[in-house]
């Protein structure tokens, strides 16, 4: 009986906790590792170009504390990042968010690559439009790789040339 009472109260507590969770999920203090993992993706404006997890300034230590607090309050990583962006501007994010003209930054490098690829293939494609005899002559020109005996002969010739 005692056991069952215990079980019931336990289940009751469990339901209570689960029921409350969405409202106030008081989580255990998050570890340094969790904080650092998120901090790595945030840039504090006082230390230029240094991610928050390794920045040694006091301001950054405070920011990390804030992250820890928000985590304890049950905020998700996404929410915390959005909070920081809202408070201090988009520059705190490791990458520009996809708003306004920022899509440019993600579009340009791949389109540059594709343009380059197109140019390279264009060189081949137009290169193919050649007359038949041109094709033949080209194959005769295509460099014969010298084999070892030929290389030796070239060298002998060179020595002779030098002596002259």
């Amino acid at each position, binding site marked *: 009986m005692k056991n069952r009472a215990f079980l019931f109260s336990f289940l009751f507590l469990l339901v209570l906790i689960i029921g409350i969770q969405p409202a106030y999920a008081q989580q255990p203090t998050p570890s340094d590792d969790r904080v650092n993992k998120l901090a790595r993706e945030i840039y504090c*404006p*006082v230390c230029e170009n240094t991610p928050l997890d390794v920045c040694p300034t006091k*301001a950054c230590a*405070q920011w990390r504390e804030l992250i820890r607090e928000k985590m304890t309050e049950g905020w998700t990583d996404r929410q915390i990042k959005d909070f920081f962006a809202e408070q201090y*501007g988009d520059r705190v994010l490791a990458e520009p968010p996809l708003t306004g003209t920022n899509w440019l930054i993600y579009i340009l490098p791949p389109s540059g690559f594709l343009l380059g690829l197109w140019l390279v293939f264009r*060189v081949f494609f137009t290169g193919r439009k050649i*007359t038949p005899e041109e094709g033949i*002559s*080209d194959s005769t020109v295509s460099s014969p790789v010298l084999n070892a005996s030929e290389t030796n002969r070239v060298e002998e010739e060179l020595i002779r040339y030098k002596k002259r």
Partner: protein
Amino acid sequence: MKKDVVDSQNQKVRRHLPVWIFLTAFIILGVFLGIMAAGYARSVRVALSPGEKLPELSLTSFTGTTYHSMDLKNKVVVIHFWASWCQTCEEEMRSFEEIWQQYKKSDQFMILGVDYVDTEVQALPYLKRLGITYPNGPDLQMKLAETFRVTGVPETFIFDRSSHLAFYKIGPFASVSEIKGVIEPLLVRE
């Protein structure tokens, strides 16, 4: 082998990229250079310079009051940037508080503290510890820091009653009297 040479001379097939592609690429690079120059020009601008007009601004204080630049007309306005992680700010803020106590009754004087790259959880106890009562607010999205081209904290901007920048200082004021020395003439002057 002769044949080959002749062949490549007779060849009329266009097998190279047209000039315009390179021209465009070069022009784009040139434009980038121009942008770099503009960016450089922006980055070397130092703080707001004396004589400039008080920029449009609004600051919502930690207590929830919003201050607009139009509310600050006909007043001598001190806008100073600080942060709770800034050690040299402490003494200066105490001085500003002393000034505030002396002048707050005058409707011609205002101090606004702008909290720069700081967290509210740290800022509020900091203000409480120093006993600061003049309005302070967070610099949301660092808009004010950018408008005033702040390079660090503490930095102070003092505007005269016609809302022109009369004085600015990078680094802390040394004493109450130093601050007074700046604002008193401004208050007297029409």
